[in-house]
């Protein structure tokens, strides 16, 4: 079967849904975060598909912007995660000290 715009859109919809499932069902924040990335990427596929079948540049540029945004988002998100564990480590130590009195 020769793929058409619909096929690409359906693939992207499936990936988007998988990402949603990941966000809603997983507890590991890193996996949740990766599921969000998966969703963003499926959107990228949608944009590129439209860009191709509409012969319009907006979609491709939008994808580039989304990539930049996603990168910035990843940096901040992972910085937050790391900082949470750093703080927790420090606070655990704090509690240990207290226990030793």
């Amino acid at each position, binding site marked *: 079967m020769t793929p058409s715009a619909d096929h690409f859109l359906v693939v992207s919809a499936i990936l988007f849904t998988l990402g949603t499932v990941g966000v809603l069902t997983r507890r590991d924040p890193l996996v949740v975060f990766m599921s969000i990335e998966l969703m963003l990427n499926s959107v990228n596929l949608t944009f590129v598909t439209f860009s191709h079948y509409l012969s319009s540049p907006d979609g491709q540029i939008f994808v*580039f912007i989304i990539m930049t945004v996603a*990168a*910035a988002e*990843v*940096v901040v998100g*992972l*910085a937050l995660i*790391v900082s949470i564990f*750093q703080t927790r*480590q420090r606070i655990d130590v704090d509690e240990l000290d207290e226990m030793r009195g």
Partner: protein
Amino acid sequence: MIQAYVPLLILALVAGGFAASNILITFVVGPYRPTREKLSPYESGMTEIVPPRQRFPIKFYVIAMLFLLFDIEAVSFYPWSILLRSLHFAGFIEMLIFVAILLVGFIYVWKKGALDWE
């Protein structure tokens, strides 16, 4: 247009097959005589080492994060670099603004000590 990528596809198949077979062949040839010591993680010949508590190796993240941010910059250079002759000075200015802003970020990152390794 996409035809140009067919050779890459074929190379990928060949190279992938090659790499995989190299890994798989290791199961076939060669002796296999495991002992407890052999299978333990390598510790410079010493066993039972309890490592001293290490610092949270935060530096590696910071480096990787900064790399990611500058990588974006680098990626947007590519379309610009081949168009510079057509964009003339306006193109140069466009990118100069882009670079100058990121340069401020770079100076900030530098001064904040994120690039210092101990």
